[in-house]
């Protein structure tokens, strides 16, 4: 009997509303509230009407005084509008890490370092209720399905920090939500009845798209707060004076491609074996006229070239890298031999971009660059010059198999990826033993993982440039270490909710059931084991760097950034 296919309704954008309990009454109320009351609903297309955006992409939250709404350094995918009550933003100095549920940064002292010699005899996953760096001045309460963390001593915070009150009608969190940047400030509720509308990024993106007022408001904030300093730090703009830089900042367009929730989508596609470049959103197409350079602000993009019936990857670009400069600089210098984009640029997962128009590049930016900083002319005519273009050179250096492997598995996201050279690795497991010794007898990675050629990417936290695991942690337990930016988990404030575990696309986080000093499971009042999320912390508390890397006798293991391929090329050099 032939198999009959399972027929399902095609998944739609709003199959899962942000708040399934959102009512029509609440939506009516929102539509009567600024800024939605000022929006022209007719400008929204039929498939994404304003009303449906509010119904499906937003939710109303209520906070009590002192409850933290957003934490500085956290990654979030939503913005907030204050509907009633007040919130307070902490300006200077920043709140102490312990007040944000985080581990106090710093290394272990000499005694704690030496104590590791005998700590190896402790039971696996021993959890002391007196964790060093355990939070103080922070409480937690359960509110419906969510855990709310609150500051226990708000007056003291107000005394010791410069803060500013925000009241109804104020917006915050929109830049972090749209550009996938960490939150720049901590904001907590300043009244017992603070009512906020949380809008997830998809809704915010559509609101911006169809409402000129919101678009110009967010665009202005973005240009003022984030853009100027970013452009100033970008090498090709360093020769511009302030007036020229302001002109560039004014003309820059910003754009987001792909999907914020790429990790879930990626997991699904990877399981189905259908991760293919042809399906990724095109940012710039091969053969298109170059109407601007593309600066990758966050996320990643794939540089590809048509090959046979598909696309072959030549390179990938991460934050700070530029696409299209070669072609635009060529056209500026050789007006008679104008070239189009030589390659395609496609969003991998999620990509936030800045586009500097060609006109401005030709008028201001390119004339400011010294000749030595201008890219070489594009060699277009096939056969005229057989030299390899810079984009394709990377492919030649690392090899096509490795490049496709790194791209398809999204390993470029790692800033401290555990790379193993199988030609050198004797499988001695010294790295695993070193990791276990450094973490009280608990190894925090698996010396196994996907491989291509002589390269293996072990199953260890990569400390991603885009740490999707950090989105949604209710207590701030998973966070970036303030100095070097490692992603770490504070066991003292981890409540075992599995948010990070579920978000990690690389399965690098494990949930463990913790034990007391006798090796007995710790349980809650309902006798359920208490779980904590664990992962590689890059030996952030130890001197000397990651123990795994230092322990490899054959130099076969390295922790390296794969955000660009230069370190890997250098490391693998034959």
């Amino acid at each position: 009997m032939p198999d009959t296919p399972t027929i399902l309704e095609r998944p739609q954008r709003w199959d899962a509303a942000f708040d399934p309990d959102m009512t029509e009454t609440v939506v009516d109320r929102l539509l009567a509230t600024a800024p939605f009351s000022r929006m022209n609903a007719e400008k929204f297309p039929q498939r994404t009407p304003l009303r449906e955006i509010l119904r499906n992409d937003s939710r109303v939250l209520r906070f009590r005084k002192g409850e933290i709404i957003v934490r500085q350094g956290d990654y979030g995918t939503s913005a907030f509008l204050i509907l009633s009550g007040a919130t307070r933003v902490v300006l200077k100095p920043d709140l102490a890490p312990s007040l944000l549920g985080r581990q106090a940064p710093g290394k272990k002292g000499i005694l704690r370092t030496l104590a590791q010699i005998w700590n190896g005899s402790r039971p696996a996953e021993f959890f002391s209720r007196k964790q060093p760096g355990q939070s103080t001045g922070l409480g937690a309460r359960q509110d419906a399905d969510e855990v709310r963390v609150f500051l226990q001593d708000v007056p003291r915070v107000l005394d010791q920090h410069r803060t500013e009150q925000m009241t109804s009608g104020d917006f915050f969190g929109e830049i972090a939500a749209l550009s996938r940047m960490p939150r720049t400030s901590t904001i907590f509720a300043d009244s017992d009845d603070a009512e906020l509308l949380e809008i997830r990024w998809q809704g915010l993106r559509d609101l911006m798209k169809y409402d000129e007022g919101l678009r110009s408001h967010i665009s202005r904030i973005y240009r003022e707060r984030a853009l100027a300093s970013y452009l100033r730090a970008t090498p090709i703009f360093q020769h511009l004076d302030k007036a020229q830089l302001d002109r560039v900042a004014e003309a820059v367009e910003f754009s987001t491609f792909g999907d914020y929730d790429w990790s879930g989508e990626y997991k699904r596609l990877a399981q189905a074996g259908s991760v293919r470049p042809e399906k990724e959103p095109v940012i710039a197409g091969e053969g298109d006229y170059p109407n601007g350079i593309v600066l990758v602000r966050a996320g990643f993009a794939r540089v590809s070239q048509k090959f046979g019936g598909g696309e072959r990857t030549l390179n990938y670009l991460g934050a700070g890298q530029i696409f299209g400069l070669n072609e635009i600089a060529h056209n500026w210098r050789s007006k008679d031999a104008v070239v189009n984009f030589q390659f395609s640029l496609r969003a991998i997962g999620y990509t936030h971009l800045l586009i500097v128009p060609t006109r401005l590049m030709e008028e201001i930016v390119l004339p400011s660059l010294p000749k030595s900083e201008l890219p070489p002319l594009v060699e277009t005519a096939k056969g005229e010059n057989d030299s390899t273009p810079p984009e394709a050179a990377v492919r030649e250096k690392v090899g096509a198999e490795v490049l496709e492997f790194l791209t398809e598995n999204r390993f470029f996201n790692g800033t401290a990826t555990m790379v193993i050279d199988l030609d050198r690795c004797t499988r001695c497991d010294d790295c695993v033993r070193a990791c276990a010794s450094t973490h009280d007898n608990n190894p925090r990675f698996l010396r196994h993982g996907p491989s291509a050629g002589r390269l293996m990417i072990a199953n260890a936290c990569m400390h991603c440039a885009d740490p999707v695991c950090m989105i949604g942690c209710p207590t701030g337990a998973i966070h970036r270490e303030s100095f070097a930016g490692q992603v770490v988990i504070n066991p003292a404030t981890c409540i075992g909710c599995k948010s990070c575990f579920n978000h990690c696309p690389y399965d690098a986080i494990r949930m463990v059931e913790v034990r007391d000093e006798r090796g007995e499971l710790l349980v809650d009042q309902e006798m359920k084991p208490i779980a904590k999320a664990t992962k590689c912390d890059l030996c952030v508390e130890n001197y000397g760097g990651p123990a795994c890397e230092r322990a490899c006798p054959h130099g076969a293991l390295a922790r390296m950034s794969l955000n660009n391929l230069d370190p890997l090329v250098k490391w693998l050099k034959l």
Partner: protein
Amino acid sequence: MNRFRHQLFSGLGASVVAGAGALWLNGKFNALPDYAFLTGWALLAGMFVLTIYNVRKKLPFLPLGKSETWLQIHIYLGFFTTLLFLIHLNFRLPHGWFEIALAWLFVLVSGSGMAGLLFSRVLPRRLATRGGEVIFEKIPALRHALKTQAEDLALGMDAKSPVIADFYARRLAAFFSGPKNLWLHLAESRRPVNALLAQLEDLRRFSNDAERDQIGKLSALVRQKDGLDYHRALQLTLKLWLFVHIPLTYSLLIFTAAHLVFVFGFSGGAR
């Protein structure tokens, strides 16, 4: 030049210079009255540095430098210490059972170290080339799973071919029952698996369609099992040499301590 070649050339260069220096000093000073004490202490110091590498390995959480650097020092100091040992022996054969035992221990420790170095440089590349990376500790479970699959194919409820069942009982049951061909895998010989596959191919010629399908699947399982055996053989070798090198080192240290006691206990008359 890549970092491994750089390590090799700088290590060899340092060893040659140090070795030449030691030989020159030996030629110049070996007539000194307490020369054997001098070379003995130098040898002991070399052995001490070689031994504390193991201590470094046991304290990975302390900032004691990279194990890779330690290993490079261990390798080239090992070569140099071998030369010191020959100088200490004054390039003559040892005599007396204790001295012979001590010298044999030294030779075995050095030899096992050199064998380990050779294995560490050759076998990983062979494993990577063969592919099918597997964790050593998981091999028995994977082997069991392959055996179960093969048994189901040949002898299970759905298997209806007495010819295949008979072949399985005669030829494949033993092959799937445990690790096989360790030495041949180390010698990179594929003779046993090719012979098995050839026999399966022979069987295929006289089979019907259903049996051919079964034989195809069995051949794939044979290849997988052979790959698993290959990984086991090479990974086991990479692990086992240390089980020779380290216990012998401890024995050598005990004999060396006894040698020190004997030398200082009985050297009064010799002076």
